[in-house]
């Protein structure tokens, strides 16, 4: 047994340290690519355990990889340099509602959908709604600054965090922010932690903001015979004085995949559809619905469907949820990107994607939270086909470049992790990346926390192939 392992046994109950091969392999992956075998997995259950493990790791310079539910799409929790996976998911769940202050205090392991459920019991809502909310932990959401369809109107995770408890890589327990909505005391370390992908600290508690739940919703499904028109319809709606809660885009390939998978009555002849959800007071919904109809007609939509019942509306949103599994049936491997562009550039981005598709002869389908410019181009391929994967790697690289050229960003919500690390400099410039590295160095002088993420090593490239 190596010496750091012996030390771990002194600070954690033995049954919280897993070293069997079967256990280690079970924490070697996430929902993205690749598998990396850690030397040990620790299951932490309170902040002192986290601090103790980090102190050991810091002395022995062993890398530590925090992991929630492992649903990350960018390799965030992968133990790329071996060492220790720190499993946060078995931490006893705590969701402490303070409805009169509209806040809730949660443990890092709390699942996002459970937080929202607890809030709904008081007529409140925790707004960020990533599709994986029923599986992913709030810790993972905070680390990735996750968002979902409602992000258009309500923002993403970072807009709802007002305080954190964090353990630093050197094993110190600190508090950031507080319990008040306004707070300008010192640097905003809360916001620095959110989206840091577990590279600066381990989040052990969060205080989140809640809002009141809108009383009613209205769904509208609009179909288009041209992708560009759909793109324009998005900007047009958003500049008309209406702010929908959600505005989702599906291209024809997605529509057809869903209809093949589980027929939901989507218009298969349409080149693209936009699914809109308005929310608010029932009276204002009536007005807004008519306004949207007018805008869509004027811009040249082929069809506007307004569901008559709650069930019909739920059916449309269910179809939207089926996109991800449905497209997985086209080809077994899904390289799922989330490049994001300014909203007025969506039509241009769609054109660029089309070019990329032709140039590299790859299968690309596009859907996503178009209302906030966050598209999800998915490249469908077969990871057993090395030649195809090489083409896919090139297509992905060009896709990132296209987003940056159009004034956009590499990632709207899935994070950088390992996959996008090589492209950081082209978006941020050398000096930009250098400032980030300096922050990392001062927080984590021994580079033990989630090493090998966000910042690429000399010569690192995107690799989707493996032997």
């Amino acid at each position: 047994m190596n010496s750091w392992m012996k030390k771990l046994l002194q600070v954690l109950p033995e049954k919280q340290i897993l070293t069997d091969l079967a256990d280690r392999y079970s924490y070697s992956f996430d929902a993205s690519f690749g598998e990396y075998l850690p030397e040990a997995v620790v299951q932490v259950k309170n902040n002192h355990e986290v601090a103790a493990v980090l102190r050991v790791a810091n002395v022995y310079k062993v890398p530590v990889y925090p992991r929630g539910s492992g649903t990350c799409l960018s390799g965030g929790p992968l133990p790329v340099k071996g060492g220790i996976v720190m499993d946060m998911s078995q931490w006893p769940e705590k969701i402490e509602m303070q409805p009169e202050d509209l806040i809730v205090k949660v443990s890092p392991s709390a699942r996002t959908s459970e937080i929202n459920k607890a809030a709904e019991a008081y007529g409140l809502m925790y707004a960020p709604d990533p599709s994986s909310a029923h599986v992913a932990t709030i810790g993972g959401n905070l680390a990735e600054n996750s968002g979902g369809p409602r992000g258009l109107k309500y923002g993403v995770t970072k807009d709802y965090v007002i305080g954190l408890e964090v353990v630093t890589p050197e094993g110190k327990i600190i508090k950031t922010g507080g319990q008040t909505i306004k707070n300008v005391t010192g640097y905003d370390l809360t916001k620095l932690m959110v989206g840091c992908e577990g590279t600066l600290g381990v989040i052990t508690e969060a205080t989140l903001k809640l809002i009141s739940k809108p009383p009613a919703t209205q769904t509208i499904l609009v179909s288009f015979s041209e992708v560009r028109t759909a793109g324009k319809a998005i900007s047009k709606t958003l500049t008309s004085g209406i702010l929908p809660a959600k505005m989702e885009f599906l291209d024809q390939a997605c529509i057809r995949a869903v209809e093949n998978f589980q027929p939901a009555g989507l218009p298969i002849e349409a080149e693209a559809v936009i699914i809109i959800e308005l929310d608010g007071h029932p009276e204002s919904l009536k007005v807004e619905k008519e306004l949207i109809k007018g805008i869509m007609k004027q811009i040249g939509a082929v069809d506007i469907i307004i569901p008559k019942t709650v069930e019909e509306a739920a059916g449309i949103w269910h179809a939207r949820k089926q996109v991800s599994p449905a497209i997985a049936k086209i080809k077994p491997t899904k390289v799922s990107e989330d490049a994001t562009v300014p909203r007025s550039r969506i039509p241009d981005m769609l054109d660029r994607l089309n070019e990329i598709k032709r140039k590299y002869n790859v299968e690309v389908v596009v859907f996503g939270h178009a209302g906030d410019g966050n598209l999800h181009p998915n490249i469908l391929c077969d990871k057993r086909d090395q030649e195809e994967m090489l083409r896919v790697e090139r297509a992905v690289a060009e896709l990132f470049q296209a987003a940056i050229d159009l004034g956009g960003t590499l990632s709207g919500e899935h994070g950088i992790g390992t996959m996008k690390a090589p492209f950081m400099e082209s978006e941020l410039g050398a000096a930009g990346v250098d400032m980030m590295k300096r922050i990392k160095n001062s927080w984590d002088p021994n580079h033990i926390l989630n090493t090998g993420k966000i910042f690429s090593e000399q010569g690192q490239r995107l690799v989707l192939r493996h032997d």
Partner: protein
Amino acid sequence: MTNLKEIQEKVNYDKLFDCVQCGYCLPACPTYETMERETHSPRGRINLVKMVAEGKAEVEDLRNPIEKCLGCMACMTVCPTNVEYNLIFEGAKEVIEDHDVKPAALKKTEDFIFNSLFPSSNWMGSIGNAAWIYQKSGLQKAAQTTHLTALALHAGRFERVMPDLPSPIERILRKRRVLPDYKLRTTVAFFTGCVMDAMFFKTNQNTVELLRLSGAEVLMPKGQTCCGALHSHAGKAESARELAMRNIEAFDLEDVDYIVNNAGGCGAKMTEYPQLFEENTTWHERAKEFAAKVRDISEVLVELDGLTFTQPVQRLVTYQPSCHLTNIRRICDEPRMLLHAVPGILVKELERPDFCCGSAGIYNLVNYDESMKILDLKMMDVKERKTNTIITTNPGCLLQMKLGIERHGLEGEIEAVHLVDLLMEAGPSAK
């Protein structure tokens, strides 16, 4: 060195790639909840199977995670990409069985169960001869004499909740063909099941009566035997195949519309018979024809819609569905429709009806402690409903719920009842 190609074939290696590791199955998996590690989750198990098939881990590494899987298939129902975990799981079981990595105590327990308790390939008795399974208190004694201390330790608990055996006379007098009183609407064959027929003979008789009252001619083919589900789930593919062939032959002699059963687990296995045979063989074709006729009693009763219930039943009822009825047959509505047709009862759904009860074939015998953790969670849910009856649709679940009632000291307060018996209590008559 193990032959990787063979392992890959057995575990359906190509199907492993359907799993995109999204983790959507984690919240549905009972063992992930009770054993608190990814190793005992569907996603973890599928990944481990892959690691073994790629030679990165040994078959021995796979043994415990697969052994502790209930095979409840709740993961399949929630999986967005339709991963066929049932095939992967049974393949992995077979690989483990082939590699002889089971510990001696487990092997002994399994041998005992399969050779003395359930029909094996050596034991091909037909129904009517069902006293094999146990004489009350025989299980414990048998286990003791074969020095299966672990099994003997718990066997007593199971025996206490087992119903009395019917007299041999009742069994001998059973009719092999019954006809409806009025119009003949359909002809069905009844699959009695081995556990059902041995322990819940009365429920089987009630099933036949409900079918008859609904207008069905009911045949009970001789020569039918155990469905083979338990054998399949233990990795004994060869025995499962033999049992399947016996049943296909037994039912082939009868020209019927449906093959009806009242045990969710057996029904699921029988619809999976085609998977036991290589495609494009005669047996595969015969299995397909057989499987297409398999129906659960609740499906047939709802379809025939031939019953009215005349007797109000004063019960507060909660429903524990059979996992395989839900997750493999995907039958969820029919049993509930029947429940709601009974006058007088009040039905309260469990908070998590689709969470396994921990019975899972012989899981509760070979993994007693793990099974009880899961049962305890189920009983918490049951208690919170404050009902006096638990309805089930499978003999294994029925026994397990009886065990749960005893374990939680609820005898006299809560009763576990098969759906069919509840329907009989409600005074069914032809419409």
